[in-house]
């Protein structure tokens, strides 16, 4: 870089460019916020779903599983588990943990009440109905 391109010019381009692209990002965010109601399944956001989400969080499910592809990669994707396994299987599975099979990955026992399990299933059902542009590629997640 020769003397023509000075540090002051570089600095001005930095501040100008940053402000411009951050404003563009805010504009896109604004538009996203307006479009989300058609995609994020908020109509089904019941108190049970909210309670289920809280259980999901306070038991750190994301520490092993992924949800819509985000999280740890140690255990199956659960964004579509409602469609893959159905509500009864999910509840029975959680109740039966840990399997105790030697050498296999183990899921802890969380001692959920029946109401907790219903709320979790409601949360997973709601999650499975978010419009994710057809992700994951197949039912296995």
């Amino acid at each position, binding site marked *: *870089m020769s003397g023509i391109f000075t540090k002051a010019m570089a600095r001005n381009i930095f501040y100008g460019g940053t402000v411009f692209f951050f404003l563009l990002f805010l504009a896109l965010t604004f538009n996203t916020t307006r479009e989300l109601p058609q995609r994020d399944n908020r109509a089904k956001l019941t108190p049970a779903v909210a309670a289920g989400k809280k259980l999901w969080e306070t038991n*750190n499910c994301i*520490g092993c599983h992924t*949800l819509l592809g*985000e999280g*740890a990669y140690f255990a199956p994707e659960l964004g579509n588990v409602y469609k893959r396994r159905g509500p009864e299987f999910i509840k029975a599975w959680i109740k039966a943990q*840990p399997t105790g099979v030697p050498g296999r990955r183990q899921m802890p026992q969380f001692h959920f009440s029946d109401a907790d399990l219903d709320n979790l299933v409601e949360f997973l059902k709601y*999650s499975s109905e978010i419009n994710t542009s057809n992700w994951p590629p197949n039912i296995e*997640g």
Partner: protein
Amino acid sequence: MQYKTQAVAKPYFIAAIGLFVGQILFGLIMGLQYVIGDFLFPAIPFNIARMVHTNLLIVWLLFGFMGSAYYLVPEESETELFSPKLALVMFWIFLVAGALTVVGYLALPYATLAKLTGNDLLATMGREFLEQPLITKVGIVVVALAFLFNITMTVLKGRKTAISMVLLLGLWGLAVFFLFSFYNPDNLVLDKFYWWWVVHLWVEGVWELILGALLAFVLIKVTGVDREVIEKWLYVIITLTLVTGVIGTGHHYYWIGTPEYWQWWGSVFSALEPIPFFAMTVFAFNMVSRRRREHPNRAATLWALGTGVMSFLGAGLWGFLHTLAPVNYYTHGTQITAAHGHMAFYGAYVMVVLCMISYAMPILRGRAANSDKAQVVEMWGFWLMTVAIVFITLFLTGAGILQVWLQRISATPLSYMATQDQIMVFYWLREWTGVMFLIGLVVYIASFFIGGDKKAATA
């Protein structure tokens, strides 16, 4: 050292390295749980080990950033630190709070920890990387504000250089975007959307300003190249970073319920994200080859060059590998992401903090550079850890490619767990390479205890 208050950096660096060891030990536990599923169960379930592994990483890097800032800012501003006492008080608060949090993770069921620490008042826990209890999050904000106050006051009363301004901007950005960790709506899509305002705008945004500033500082010191040249490079690099990286957030908005136009915005802008990292590599090598002095601390120069190369490979190349929406459709949430995460964090942030420590620590200990013998050992640590992370990344990439193929592309897709059974060999290889990383870390730490002829404190 030029200013005596720079000495407050030392405990920060020591704590950073100590927590780094903890991070790696928990990484090895998790790696073993990938292959021996019930290892340490139920004492340390995988999710707890992972939380400790990632949270320790974040906290030790923050210690590293803060220590670096305390070392760098007085020298750049040509004045003593505003309040060294405040810096030391905050050090202990942050260390004790961090230790208590980790003890809480390990000693209590996570749900109990949430209940005890006020998660019912404001639910912020249980989201990846933001698992800290509410009181810890508030503590992080308090420590960050006290730190920023201290650093900002120092800059304001002294010389204002491009390096210190960029560093300040990065650190303030870090604190501001962390505030989004307190926003956790019931709406999962909104939750995820703003979660990335912490995670992405940190590591692919403001943290890169910190990275650039630290690298530029060390390069000025070890090469003696004119400040005007180096600071011009710095501005160009961080311009490229934010111009590509801010809209590049869109590469996380493909499959989480956000509008489909993000597939275009995200793909185009994040495909450009390797450019600033490439510029950083060119920058580091260019400055070193134009050096005007032979600095006795060759290890620090090696770390600086290593940061340039490895951040380009890990963040730039491995990021590009799966950032285009049609590719990401298949790779999203697989071991490919884990592969990228490991090399990117190591190449960009671990290495720049170790670079800063490598440069500053000998000076903090009263010499321009360590003895040749100590430097050779430190460089062994560099190569062992760096080669190990390259192979960890390659093995996880192998695991990821097979996972994508077996579980998502095959005409007869396997279930998640059946797929895991098929790729076990890669996890074994990754674990053994992790042991090599630990050996590298031990060698690195050993280099601090090796004597020999020290270089006189002149620089």
